[in-house]
């Protein structure tokens, strides 16, 4: 068993520098790497490019880095629900590359799996396809999208072991597995770091080979963005 365990978030983020490209898992505030984000704020790295489906909310998630003016460029599919994000984008302070969500996921998966680029129908005929190569296959038009190139991927899993094997829970899975192995260094934080051998080999979502560093995160807030409930009759 190849040991990927590091002792804390400081060790986990060792080597993160200004101007790097960072991938961060999560959908809205669900499944975001809370500990890595807090450490990025503490490190105060500047001019980073963040690849993340959303940018959190004003005072949580990647919103914290936006408030702190650490982000030069966001690559995301959805801005809604984050006023500061929209403000920085519309004012031109923040560079934003809006990417269809499925394309965003596949650009991660392509990097993970060694594909240089792929053809997707998403965005054909829209401004997303401007300046990009397009091509017809079987009468349908596709856009060529390159794989992402990132320095670090920050991933949040539910359970993991020192071998780097991961299990995700519910919809907090989202982009997290696709980002594993998609950057030079994949850093995973888990809620529960279990003994090696405890996870069923049939039910490991991400094998440890895609992971470089793993640690157990502290104090997950797991904030809910839209608490929607019904009343018991």
């Amino acid at each position: 068993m190849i040991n990927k365990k590091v002792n804390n978030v400081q060790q986990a983020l060792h080597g993160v520098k200004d101007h790097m490209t960072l991938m961060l898992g999560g959908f809205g505030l669900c499944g975001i790497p809370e500990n890595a984000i807090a450490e990025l704020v503490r490190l105060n790295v500047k001019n980073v490019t963040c690849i993340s489906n959303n940018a959190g909310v004003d005072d949580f998630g990647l919103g914290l880095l936006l408030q702190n003016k650490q982000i030069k460029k966001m690559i995301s599919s959805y801005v809604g629900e984050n006023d500061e994000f929209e403000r920085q984008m519309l004012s031109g302070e923040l560079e934003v590359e809006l990417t269809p969500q499925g394309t965003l996921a596949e650009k991660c998966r392509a990097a993970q799996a060694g594909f240089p680029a792929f053809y997707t129908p998403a965005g054909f005929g829209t401004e997303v396809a401007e300046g990009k190569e397009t091509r017809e296959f079987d009468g349908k038009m596709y856009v060529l999208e390159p794989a992402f190139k990132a320095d670090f991927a920050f991933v949040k899993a539910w359970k993991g072991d020192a071998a780097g094997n991961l299990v995700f829970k519910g919809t907090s899975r989202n982009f997290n597995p696709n980002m594993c192995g998609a950057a030079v260094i994949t850093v995973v934080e888990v809620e529960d770091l279990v003994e090696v051998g405890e996870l069923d080999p049939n039910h490991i979502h991400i094998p440890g080979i895609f992971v470089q560093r793993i640690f157990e995160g502290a104090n997950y807030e797991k904030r809910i963005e839209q608490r929607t409930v019904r009343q018991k009759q």
Partner: protein
Amino acid sequence: MALDKNGIAKRIAQEVQDGFYVNLGIGIPTLVANYVREDIEVEFQSENGVLGMGPFPFDGEEDADIINAGKQTITTMPGASFFDSATSFAMIRGKHVDLTILGAMEVAENGDIANWKIPEKMVKGMGGAMDLVASAENIIVAMMHTNKRGESKILKQCSLPLTGVGCVTKVVTNLAVLEVKDKAFHLLERAPGVSVEEIQNATEGTLVVKGDIPEMSL
């Protein structure tokens, strides 16, 4: 009388057939789930990674790790599954989802749709909408027929940045059900008490009216 959001959702629910996998967008489309007939089997897919969504959780039972694409807390039905984003869009791009219902700011008579950006004013982002409209073969748009200033959103040509080209098959608004084909909106049904003339006046795009147009039955 023009429909409200729930009325639009109720009418769209009639389009959902037994055995359909359905993706519901944010807003009015989300409401459609409330009106689907109970004697048919339907599964709802949400692009953030769940198939087999159920109703909202009871108060106190919400789980931060189980949400829909609108970031709302949800529950799952027996037979549900969770998966990653790449797999979710494999379902969408691979045409495994039977019906996509989404909102729009504008639709055009050639099937174009715009719903993600107003240049220099508002940018929500396309989320999964561009993938959905580029891949789905059965796309129903839920929207208001006109904007707050009374201007038509059912157009000859979209003025806003597009989400997808030539993809919309049906539009259900507060006034009408429209089929989009042959570069025109074909009027299929009127909202209860709404006249063809009212619909015509609210429609900038080419409107084809053939024979008697029935009222929706809701």
